[in-house]
């Protein structure tokens, strides 16, 4: 009679998807933020596309990272405030699995749009057409890894004051590897080189994240609910 694990994950995912589509403005905000941040760089550096192209990996990834940090607020905070996260912890089902489902759904709702917007922004920064596919792939994988890492710090800051800024402070150092390899992949794509090597590293980080991040996030959430 107890619900099997796969159904639990599916229900949690569906619930989050349904909630997200009832409040679509929450989804648009991180995306808008990404685009605005990306626009700030040409305004502060130079309008020349050839020079912007050099800065493009940095602009794309810093913008993506900051926008992901903003979006991480939506992962646990509301559920923690209205008591539903507590009910997840009391359900007798694996909290790890449920949080993994939540994180994946969160990535679908925030990371994927970011990845899709990436080529658009990259084009505005002078990145050549052939490179745009690589930009999308790197952002998709990198944002997934960022969501996993962010879930841990989101769980840890549940009980903290001014959680939003603290969340960013905690996540940024942990996100350095993702940034390094993601930006490298983007740079190689722009230069026309193969992006396999840094993509494998991103993939390795993502796999490492899938293995440990939900566990750590579940432990962090239980601590945060005390």
């Amino acid at each position, binding site marked *: 009679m107890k*619900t099997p694990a796969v159904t639990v994950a599916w229900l949690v995912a569906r619930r989050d998807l349904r909630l997200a589509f009832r409040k679509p403005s929450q989804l648009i905000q991180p995306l808008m933020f990404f685009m605005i941040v990306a626009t700030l760089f040409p305004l502060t550096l130079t309008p020349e596309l050839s020079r912007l192209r050099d800065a493009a990996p940095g602009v794309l990834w810093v913008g993506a990272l900051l926008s992901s940090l903003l979006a991480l607020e939506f992962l646990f905070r509301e559920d923690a405030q209205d*008591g539903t996260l507590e009910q997840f912890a009391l*359900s007798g089902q694996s909290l790890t699995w449920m949080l993994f489902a939540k994180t994946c759904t969160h990535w679908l709702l925030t990371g994927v749009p970011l990845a899709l917007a990436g080529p658009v922004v990259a084009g505005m920064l002078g990145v050549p057409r052939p490179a745009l596919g690589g930009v999308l792939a790197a952002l998709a994988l990198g944002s997934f890894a960022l969501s996993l890492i962010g879930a841990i710090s989101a769980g840890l800051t549940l009980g903290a004051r001014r959680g939003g800024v603290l969340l960013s402070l905690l996540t940024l150092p942990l996100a350095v590897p993702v940034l390094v390899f993601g930006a490298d992949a983007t740079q190689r794509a722009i230069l026309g080189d193969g992006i396999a090597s840094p993509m494998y590293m991103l993939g390795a980080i993502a796999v490492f994240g899938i293995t440990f991040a939900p566990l750590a996030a579940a432990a962090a959430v*239980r601590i945060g609910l005390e």
Partner: protein
Amino acid sequence: MRAVLHAGGFCQHDDDLSNGPAGCPGGGIGRRNGLKIRRSQGHAGSIPARGTIPFDHCMLTVEGLHLWRGDRHVLRGVSFSVEAGSCALLTGRNGAGKTTLLRAIAGLLEPEEGQVRWRGIPARAQRDAFHAELAYLGHEPALKGDLTGQENLRYSVGIRRGVAAAEIDAALARTGAAAFADRLVRALSAGQRRRIALAGLLLLNASLWLLDEPTTNLDADGQQLVADLAAEHLARQGLIVAAVHHSLPLPADRLLGIELAA
């Protein structure tokens, strides 16, 4: 000397254990509500001696619970046990630790000393199994504002057990929430939300109900509803631990009163 309370009677243990009855007096007469627990300091005398209380009758046992929140020693050696078909009522002033005790029993808070036993086994050792038999209704009815009452229950109950739409509708009807079950919870009053939460409680089919002020925001009908649901639950041999400000109108021999001092 320290009092160990369990439903159906009042067992008092002297240091020489000469007064302790041999077992749970099955249909014993309940005494007055509002029995005080002595503030024991968590030394060895807190644990009931074996042979005086048969643990297989006492489904939920709390032994010598000590808990600090920051500097405050909130729970000081709380001990009691509840058998099937009985209800423990936690009373006390604001800040006395009723919510803390409920959360400690549920496993959301870890006590510094002492333990909670469910069916004789420490709850911490069997967390998922314990939680599967447990339903916790906190201050906030745990409902998502952007979903309807029906959808909320479909998910919150669905992750615990498979439940059909008809069952959900029946439960909502029982708690008088059928009329507004398809409106977004955001648009409902606090009392209406609580009725939906009560329907969720029914649907979980849990043995142990942990209720934190279940009658909050409810009108007179609602309060009677809670009493009826509680009585039905006890009749099914379920257990209840409830933090209340006023007593629940339940048969006295099924009630155990525990007053927490601030």
